[in-house]
């Protein structure tokens, strides 16, 4: 019996060692790629999209806001979006059968009237009850439909959109002024078809927000959101910039991604039977373009910023990460033939296997690791010195990546001006190794179990208003 256990543990430790080596080698490659991408982006000229009458030729953008029981945040969110200085803009709010007074609030604040405009019926979604238009701002459309979930609401909005591009934003997110101009640049300036562009999502907790704009950036006060700031910086500046360099970006944040409307309609819009509709959409777009053999790109841009509120409690954060994990597994398992397939270029042979083995299955190794160490220790098979060194290397390597991300932040869209905030971020990068990472692995492991149990719930996310909204005024003629 002891021999069998020893053999199992021995094989397991070999797997962990290989896992560790491959993972960190990938990180090293990503580190180089992301640095190259950030340097390239810094060197690329920043053209003003248009001036004067030429702005009528700018690509048109629809902003889709799915709203389910969002009466607390929706008006403020719209107020912020109306301030975006983009010339060809349409704001489509989809009331997804809210049971609170979301629609009533929209009707009152936006002075809605029914409009005979129809959805195009190019994508399937739950029936639309009515389409409204704002008397205060003709760019605003409200679609009232039967409840069908976030992806279904997005599909209804997409079915109505008549623009070149669309962006889906959450009701608790704020796009920074100038963000759309910057985000649209790759679509205009690349020598190939750009089907999707992702910007950077940053944490808005504890930032001062006035009239829908972030006016003062500061780190959250609690440790949990500070750790998430560090996570977001790593994920975007280090991860996404790196994958984007080789056109193998498999994820664009659902909170801030710009897509070609026609292509998304071509793939039938968002999949409604998944909780990871954003990751799934990107994979299907990659698949469409590669299958059609069209020269294309899915880009990441590090300067346009979207601010979002992150969970401040372990319970809500746990639910979010559980859902993210399930979403990732669903996206990868819906398109399994893409993983490791050279037909899909570096995405198929490099990026997707990484996401499959390290992002999707990583929690299994990370969570079971401490237990195996404990068993080995109790059985007297553990070389404590080796284990401590191993742990030390893992922590050091993680820290190295965090500091590199902070460096990339210094050279790109630096937002944290206070030096103390930067010290806090380094502190968070150290502290997250002791407790948070293990908890994170546990949440994701729960996500894997949830996926196996075919769980589809989003879990309740508490949303809070950024500030108290002001009453919406008609647009100024000089605007």
């Amino acid at each position, binding site marked *: 019996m002891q021999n069998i256990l020893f053999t199992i543990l021995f094989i397991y430790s070999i797997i962990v060692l290989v896992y560790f080596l491959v993972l960190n080698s990938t990180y090293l490659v990503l580190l180089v790629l992301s640095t190259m991408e950030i340097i390239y982006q810094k060197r690329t000229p920043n053209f003003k999209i248009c001036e004067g009458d030429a702005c009528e030729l700018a690509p048109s953008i629809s902003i889709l806001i799915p709203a389910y029981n969002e009466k607390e945040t929706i008006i403020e969110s719209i107020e912020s979006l109306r301030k975006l200085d983009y010339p060809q803009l349409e704001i489509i709010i989809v009331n997804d059968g809210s049971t609170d007074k979301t629609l009533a609030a929209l009707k009152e604040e936006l002075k809605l009237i029914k409009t005979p405009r129809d959805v195009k019926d190019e994508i399937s979604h739950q029936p639309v009850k009515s389409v409204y238009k704002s008397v205060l701002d003709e760019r605003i459309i409200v679609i009232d439909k039967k409840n069908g979930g976030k992806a279904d609401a997005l599909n209804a909005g997409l079915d109505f959109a008549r623009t070149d591009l669309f962006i889906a934003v959450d009701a608790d997110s704020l796009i920074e002024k100038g963000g759309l101009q910057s985000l649209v640049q790759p679509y205009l300036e690349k*020598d190939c078809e750009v089907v999707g562009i992702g910007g950077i999502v940053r944490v808005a907790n504890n930032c001062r927000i006035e009239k829908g704009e972030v006016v003062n950036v500061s780190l959250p006060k609690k440790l949990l959101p500070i750790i998430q700031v560090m996570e977001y910086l790593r994920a975007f500046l280090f991860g996404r910039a790196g994958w984007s360099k080789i056109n193998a970006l498999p994820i664009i944040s659902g909170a801030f991604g710009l897509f070609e409307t026609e292509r998304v309609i071509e793939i039938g819009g968002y999949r409604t039977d998944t909780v990871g509709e954003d990751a799934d959409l990107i994979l299907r777009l990659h698949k469409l373009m590669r299958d059609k053999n069209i020269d294309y790109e899915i880009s990441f841009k590090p300067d346009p910023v979207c601010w979002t509120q992150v969970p401040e409690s372990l319970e809500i954060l746990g639910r979010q990460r559980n859902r993210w994990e399930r979403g990732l597994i669903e996206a990868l398992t819906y398109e399994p033939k893409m993983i490791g397939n050279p037909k899909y270029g570096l995405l198929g042979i490099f990026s997707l296997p990484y996401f499959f083995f390290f992002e999707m299955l990583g929690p299994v190794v990370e969570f079971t690791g401490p237990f195996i160490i404990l068993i080995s220790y109790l059985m007297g098979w553990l070389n404590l010195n080796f284990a401590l*060194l*191993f742990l030390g*290397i893992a922590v050091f390597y993680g820290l190295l990546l965090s500091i590199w991300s902070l460096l990339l932040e210094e050279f790109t869209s630096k937002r944290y001006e206070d030096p103390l905030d930067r010290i806090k971020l380094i502190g968070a990068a150290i502290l997250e190794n002791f407790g948070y990472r293990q908890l994170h692995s546990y949440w994701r492991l729960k996500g894997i179990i949830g996926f196996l149990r075919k769980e589809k719930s989003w879990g309740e996310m508490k949303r809070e208003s950024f500030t108290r909204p002001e009453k919406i005024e008609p647009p100024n003629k000089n605007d």
Partner: protein
Amino acid sequence: MEQLLIFLGVILLGFSVFYIITVYKHEKEKKKAPVKEKKYEKELRRINDEKDAGLKSEIIKKNRKEFKKFLTESKSEISGNKGSLKRIYKNQNFLKEDIELLEKGKWWEKTKAIERLKNLEIKEAEKDIFNLLYNEKLDVRLASLDYLSKINSPLIQNEIKNIFEKNSAEIDQFLLIKLFSANLSPKSLKTLANSPKPRLRRASAILLGRKNKKENIPPLKKLSEDPEPNIRIEVVRSIGKIGLKDGLSILTKLKDDEKSKIRAEVARSIGKIEKVEDLSLLENLAQDEVKEVRLEAFLSLAKFGETGREIIEKYRKDYPQVSREAMLRSFNPEV
């Protein structure tokens, strides 16, 4: 293993030191920036006031790169007077440096030089930048076009067809936006309009749509007979953008187009034309079999005051929702 840990530790230490130095440097620069800007502003004024833009300046000599940036990013209070800035830029040999970069610099140095010259609208580099219009690096090509459009260079008037042909269709929208600002003559767009390639004909239809340009209407008339619907629709849009009654005959011809999107666009464009007296064309479209066309016709009718409202009222019972929206729009034209 231990060696690896030590190795990683050393790298981590190196990264941390580098990070701390970077943060320190950035903080120092941030603190110094207002003082420096004040100093540069003072120096700029001194040179400008003494009417000797070529004056030797120790401050410029020591901070050449920063001063150049300061000059071209319009941070100076005398930035309103571009003539002065240009004179100083040239006489301090910054222009010469930029022209050298255009010839020998790396691609990003070229684009940065073009950007500076564009900001100050310095035309002396026009030919050098024109030579970069077909550079192998796309960013350089785009920056060159951006500059040439900004200074309204006559050199691009005869190059329009080449510009489109030597670039891929993926960047058409960028080219169109930039060329639209360049006040192109109908003559320079003739080669595009006569091209056998639909992509180029479409581009000419778009570029002809400039406000109040009566001379652009005849070439649009020819393009309105194009077999490609996506060219005809651009013709209609351009007529609306020109906004002159002279274009109405083209719209009248296209009001019966087989494509409902074109008919809807006709309805929308009529609403953009000033002083239209006969609204029968819109009334006709207001009864179109396609809802989208009717909606656009009603919304355009809303722009013609009392006469438009009378027609809307006439069809209120047939189309209650659309007439309500049009009436609201009519009484709140700024909406």
